[in-house]
């Protein structure tokens, strides 16, 4: 992906520069940009080290467990199927709290574990039709809305750029990300609900039995395995 971004930027600037007649400025700009990368990442070094260190201390002091205790009831409400089937909630909670504490390296494997648990919950849907279940969609959309409580790279970038108060954006970031998380859940769930409602009222799919039977059947399957 980075290669494509690089290519698009270079081509557009070449075309644009030849139209505006600024071709000779390009070489100098390229060299300057490359040099500024070093100053930026030097500035990032200290701040990134500080913030990652602090987040790790909070993690060691049990912040993960405390956060999980707060988020688990909410997540139970957001993922009722996983809660009912008693599989996936702990993985989802672990992934969400790791994301909230900005433990990036830990968050991705945990999220993948959560996805696997959700896939197991919707086995027929996933294995037979290769289709994401409602709760998988909700989980992924929720993950794309950043839940990071302390966005370390952002703080580091602001510090490196000489901001008078790098942390002043934390409060708006918290407000914005929680509202985004809320809208993520709504935007993921409403189309699913509408789809289910349309499927029930307009064209009952031929391969499925009436809802109540289906529920009983699936429930029975789960008990046997």
């Amino acid at each position, binding site marked *: 992906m980075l290669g494509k971004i690089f290519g698009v930027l270079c081509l557009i600037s070449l075309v644009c520069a030849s139209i505006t007649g600024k071709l000779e400025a390009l070489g100098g700009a390229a060299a300057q940009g490359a040099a500024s990368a070093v100053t930026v990442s030097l500035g990032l070094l200290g701040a990134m080290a500080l913030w990652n260190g602090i987040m790790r*201390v909070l993690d060691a002091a049990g912040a993960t467990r405390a956060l999980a205790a707060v988020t688990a009831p909410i997540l139970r409400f957001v993922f009722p199927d996983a809660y009912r089937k008693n599989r996936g909630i702990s993985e989802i909670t672990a992934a969400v709290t790791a994301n909230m504490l900005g433990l990036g390296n830990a968050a991705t494997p945990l999220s993948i574990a959560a996805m696997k648990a959700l*896939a197991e919950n919707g086995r027929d849907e996933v294995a037979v039709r290769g289709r994401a279940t409602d709760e998988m969609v909700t989980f992924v959309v929720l993950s794309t809305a950043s839940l990071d409580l302390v966005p370390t790279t952002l703080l580091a970038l602001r510090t490196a750029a000489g901001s008078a108060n790098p942390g002043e954006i934390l409060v708006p970031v918290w407000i914005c990300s929680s509202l985004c998380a809320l809208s993520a859940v709504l935007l993921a769930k409403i189309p*699913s609900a509408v789809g289910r409602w349309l499927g029930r009222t307009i064209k009952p799919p031929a391969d499925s039995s009436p809802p109540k039977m289906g529920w009983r059947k699936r429930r029975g399957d789960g008990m046997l395995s």
Partner: protein
Amino acid sequence: MKFAAGLVVPLILAAVGALMLFARREKSEKYFDAFIAGARDGMQTAVKLLPALVALLCAVAMFNASGAAELLARLAAPVCGALGIPPEIIPLLVVRPVSGSASSALAAELFSRVSPDSFAGRCASVILGSSDTALYIIAVYFAAVGIKKTRHTLPAALAVMAVCVLLACTLVRWLY
């Protein structure tokens, strides 16, 4: 508001300091070791970012020098003006769902042109802090379970990004 926002970082640092001071000795050592390990990780992240930053900042500098950035900002200005989005952050908005290191590069470059404490700088900060690389996340998470039919995941994620951008700019305008 300004006062409260300035307090957040010192409070976090003070909490961590108190944690290390009032914990029992072996625990305190454990916390400090955790700090060292985390700090090492953070530095590694910054160092790992460098090669990508070189390429991207080079491309972004060319993009700016060619006048393309100016053109893009001018083209987007009417729409941005209506929505209350500073036109300088348009390239960041395009790249944000696709790549984390590219959006860091664009933010670094933006902060070198306009101050991180300006309106555009604050908008960019809040957007960067409250959005994530949606396309990357969708690709990785679904690939891990072998799913191709992702249904309404992508449109919903992009809609969340749009909500995030509008909300961030509105919040910055209200709070500062």
